[in-house]
């Protein structure tokens, strides 16, 4: 019997068994789609709330509503509490009954100009308070600008002087299709994560389960090569991991296709993805799932039973999650193109997938990613075959 024939037999048998296993359907198909779809809707709710200026309550010290309307004509007074002292307003902020407490006083500077000072109390960790403070600053800046324009005009000077220097931002990103979505930075993290978790749900049963049930010995007595058994199982697991990661994308497409006011702002430029992005993403994912699948099979071939295998996989998942999480925040550090990042497993793959979706990936970036994944896949394939060739594959139960 050749290794190829045995591999095909083992691969097809494992696929058939997994297709009949509810856990595979749940972990690799249903759960990713459900979780991602739910996640997209939650993101939609958050984005809508932020863009539609959420209602904030403000405590204002020692003025009447008439004074207030004069100072802030745009203010919705129904969200304002008038308090006699700053301390009372502070109490409201601490109780989360208000986001800001504002006390307005007047003072005269050295040039004799009357300056209106708004003392604002807020809690830094309250996101609504930060938004309200930013809005207040923006309104005050706009009024200052208007005052300057008035002074310039009164002195027969052009009002345009207030905008003599301008910033004209131009987004050079290829914000077409999925690349224009605000969830694009999160997508690679989820794809990588489900590539791992999709396989993790079945691999213990696939290898350690055979030991536990007693089918491993039957398999080892047959003339099939041990390398063929290891390779067949790894290939079958790769399929499950791959499906797990692809269903993440399917979840996004399903959630995005549903015409809902919650998700319409999340995909302003649609859901399309370029053919080259799809092709290179698939290649990148195949190398990643080859690494994941061979690593998990190697670990589970060592474990004496399903429980021990699950313990090892649980610990391993933390090692996988950490670089995946780091891929979310690395953009703020300026390290995205650092050499060590390019050669760091999982992190480099998540970043490569993000850049592929954004249309900014280069071969010099993808090369190290594929190399790292394939080298690790080869190492763990070798390790898996070694485990299967040991007597312990039958004895360590």
């Amino acid at each position, binding site marked *: *019997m050749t290794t190829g*024939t*045995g591999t095909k*037999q*083992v691969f097809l*048998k494992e696929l*058939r*068994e997994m297709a*009949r*296993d509810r856990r595979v359907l749940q972990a690799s198909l249903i759960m990713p789609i459900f979780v991602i779809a739910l996640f997209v809707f939650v993101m939609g709710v958050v984005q809508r709330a932020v863009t539609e200026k959420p209602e904030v309550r403000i405590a204002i010290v020692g003025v009447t509503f008439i004074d207030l309307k004069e100072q802030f004509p745009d203010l919705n007074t129904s969200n304002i509490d008038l308090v006699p002292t700053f301390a009372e307003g502070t109490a409201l902020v601490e109780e989360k009954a208000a986001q800001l407490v504002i006390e307005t006083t007047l003072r005269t500077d050295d040039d004799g100009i009357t300056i209106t000072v708004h003392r604002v109390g807020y809690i830094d960790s309250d996101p609504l308070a930060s938004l309200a403070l930013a809005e207040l600053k923006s309104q005050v800046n706009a009024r200052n600008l208007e005052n300057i324009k008035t002074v310039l005009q009164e002195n027969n000077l052009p009002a345009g002087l207030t905008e003599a220097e301008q910033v004209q931002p131009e987004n050079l990103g290829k914000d077409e299709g999925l690349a224009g979505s605000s969830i694009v930075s999160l997508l690679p993290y989820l794809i990588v994560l489900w590539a791992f978790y999709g396989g993790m749900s079945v691999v213990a049963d696939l290898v350690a389960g055979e030991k536990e*049930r*007693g*089918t491993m*010995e*039957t*398999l*080892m*007595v*047959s*003339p*099939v090569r041990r390398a063929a058994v290891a390779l067949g199982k790894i290939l079958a697991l790769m399929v499950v991991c791959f499906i797990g990661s692809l269903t993440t994308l399917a979840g996004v497409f399903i959630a995005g296709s549903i015409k809902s006011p919650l998700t319409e702002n999340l995909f302003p430029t649609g859901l399309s993805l370029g053919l080259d992005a799809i092709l290179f993403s698939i290649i990148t994912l195949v190398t990643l799932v080859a690494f994941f699948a061979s690593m998990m099979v190697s670990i589970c071939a060592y474990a004496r039973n399903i429980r021990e295998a699950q313990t090892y996989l649980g610990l391993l998942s933390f090692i996988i999650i950490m670089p995946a999480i780091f891929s979310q925040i690395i953009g703020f550090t300026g390290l995205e193109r650092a050499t060590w990042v390019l050669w760091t497993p999982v992190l480099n793959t998540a970043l490569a997938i993000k850049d592929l979706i954004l249309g900014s990936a280069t071969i010099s970036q993808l090369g190290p990613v594929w190399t790292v994944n394939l080298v690790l896949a080869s190492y763990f394939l070798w390790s898996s075959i070694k485990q299967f060739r040991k*007597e312990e594959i*039958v*004895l360590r139960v």
Partner: protein
Amino acid sequence: MVNTSHLTKVFTDGKKKITAVNSVDFHAEPGQIHALLGVNGAGKTTLLRMLSTVIRPTSGTATLNNFDIHKNAAQVRESIGFLSTSTALYGRLTGREMLDYFGGLYGFSGSELKERVQAAIAQTQAEEFCDQLCDRLSTGQKQRISIARSIIHNPPILFLDEPTAGLDILAAQTVLTFIETARDQGKTIIFSTHIMNEVERLAERITVIHQGEVKGTGTLTDLKSTTGTTTAEQMFLSLISPQEAHA
């Protein structure tokens, strides 16, 4: 046929060395049922695992169907069928799919594979339930599928490791009848057991193993005569613990 020569297996547990099988010699002929008789932990399973090339002997050798277990492991595995109560089935495959799978692993395909599977099903009278998932089969039905799996490649040698342990009387009867049929077909059968009734009913030759060593080998009559006992149980006790046998 099966020949072993000074077959030894030593397991290492940290600094401790445990001799599971110590220089075992025995010989089994085609058309003969050879019983390996011993208590739990005597070394019977380790011996069968070495003969089936699942584990490597520390020293000594054996030939099966004229193939050396060290040099021709693949041919040895093609020559044997292995059955025990601890070898389970794949629960999410049907009996037929299970046989297809193992037939494929033994190198059969196409019409030849179909014929082999059908023959194994017919031989074990598994037609009625072979298309059900193995998880839904009764213990007896599972054992029939296991037997069919062990003979899918029509091996000249059968290893049966305590094949009736844990089975009810009907399922055990199926196995014993299968062993007799296989013997009549000219196969070399080595089965390990500690059940004396099975030894008396089936075994043409017996090798008594205790603490990894052969304590006696020969026909039941020879062994009774050598030990001066009248039953298989007395003979066995006499060989493994002479004091208990005469108590």
